[in-house]
């Protein structure tokens, strides 16, 4: 749980609410992109805090237990459909879970980034000009940031090959790139549960911005 600084409170005060008395927010924390629920534009509950909402603790009691005031880097307000699927927050907000292929078309937001995991350094879905072919899968940056090893990627994205998907490609497509977003369904003996994205029309040249190699396990 985080108590927002006055500057961050002003930012949220100026933004439309996501519902009565709350904002759905995303920000940088400890080098990861994190989503949370901001109450009264002053207190942010993280994924691990959401049980407190279900316990219906009064706001004043929650606020008293929050730590120091903090600034949140790159804070932005989210729409419900941009919540990471399969999380307590998305369940709390009534976001349904299904594979990306069954989801409606939406469009990438300004500044949104994505990860693609592969067992192959020479990933054939990524073209020489740094674009992705139409119909290529990826995940959101927030979801992919939770994956620390190639085998974790295999489990989270329910990949049929047991080869560790150690190659992590970061994709920054143009704003309004068409995509579908859903939740990886269990398959091939893996749990799934990660967010999956299909870039229906691929991505623009130069959208591949970096590559990293993760440990196998």
């Amino acid at each position, binding site marked *: 749980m985080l108590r927002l600084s006055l500057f961050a409170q002003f930012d949220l005060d100026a933004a439309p609410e996501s519902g009565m008395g709350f904002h759905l927010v995303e920000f940088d924390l400890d080098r990861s992109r994190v989503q949370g629920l901001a109450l009264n534009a002053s207190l942010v509950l993280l994924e691990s805090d959401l049980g407190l909402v279900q316990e219906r603790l009064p706001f004043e009691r929650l606020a008293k237990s929050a730590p120091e005031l903090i600034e949140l880097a790159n804070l932005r307000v989210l729409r419900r459909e941009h919540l990471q699927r399969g999380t307590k927050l998305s369940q709390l907000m009534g976001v349904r879970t299904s594979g990306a292929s069954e989801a409606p078309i939406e469009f990438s937001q300004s500044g949104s980034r994505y990860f693609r*995991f592969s*067992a192959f350094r020479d990933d054939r879905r990524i073209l020489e000009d740094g674009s992705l072919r139409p119909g290529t899968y990826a995940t959101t940056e927030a979801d992919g940031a939770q994956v620390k090893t190639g085998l974790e990627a295999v489990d989270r994205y329910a990949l049929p090959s047991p080869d560790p998907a150690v190659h992590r490609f970061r994709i920054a497509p143009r704003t309004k790139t068409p995509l579908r977003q859903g939740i990886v369904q269990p398959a091939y003996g893996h749990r799934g549960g990660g967010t999956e994205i*299909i870039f229906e029309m691929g991505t623009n040249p130069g959208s591949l911005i970096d590559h990293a190699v993760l440990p196998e396990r």
Partner: protein
Amino acid sequence: MRASLPPKWIEYLGSLPESGMGYQRVDVEFEDGRELQDVPVYNGEELDLPNGFSAARVLRIAIHTSK
């Protein structure tokens, strides 16, 4: 057993959508009339085949459509 597909099939699979991150699920017909359903292809180039099948004898490939 993994088998590398001939270049023409690699090129063809590149034009088709994925079924998940890094793989396609395909139905394959072979020159001798045998067929395989719902076979994974990794990175659009490595076909996961049972023993006794050859990637060099593929006659037709289509994305597997049922769940």
